[in-house]
């Protein structure tokens, strides 16, 4: 969780109420309830949220405010949700969409 900002020189700390567990492409991670899925994943060093449907090129967040739809994932079997707008909940099952040419590679980077 090295990527989280815990003491900001000007801004008050944000409320991080409850730590929750969730699954992304079948692996278990931890994040905070209510934060966007995209933020929780980035805090776990995960940038690739999906692969382009035709070319398979990897994609992550681009606008982070719901405009570009680059971050769409499947959450509890509901397709096409924007990871940057969807609040994280305990036990969520999140799946990348599109082609998955090299899922092992990113998994290895974050786990080995």
């Amino acid at each position, binding site marked *: 969780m090295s990527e989280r900002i815990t003491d900001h020189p000007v801004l008050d700390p944000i409320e991080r109420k409850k730590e929750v567990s969730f699954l992304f492409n079948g692996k278990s991670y931890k994040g905070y309830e209510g934060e966007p899925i995209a933020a929780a994943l980035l805090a776990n060093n995960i940038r690739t949220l999906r692969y382009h449907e035709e*070319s398979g090129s990897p994609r992550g967040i*681009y*606008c982070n405010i719901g405009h570009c739809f680059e971050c769409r994932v499947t959450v509890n079997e*509901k397709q096409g949700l924007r990871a940057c707008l969807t609040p994280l909940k305990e036990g969520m099952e999140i799946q990348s969409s599109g082609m998955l040419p090299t899922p092992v590679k990113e998994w290895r980077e974050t786990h080995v």
Partner: protein
Amino acid sequence: MKQQDFLVCRCEEVTYNELMETASRTGCTARELKLRTRAGMGYCGGRTCRPLVQQITQKLEKAPHTRVTLKYQPPVRPISFGDLGGGEE
């Protein structure tokens, strides 16, 4: 230095050269250019690349710097499959 090609429309993966080439080959209108290449017609509804596609088509048509009614198709956000049935969360 020769410029590398790059994507303009991220959703439909349409490149700059593709757009320029289609535009100069067919001499088509802005609307046709979008239909031919699919630039700006993908999942995001053109929210990301619209200013770029507009720039290209304005150059083409020496677009009127005037009052217009912009063409946008509803819905402005794609409907997710889960919600078509109107079921509960």
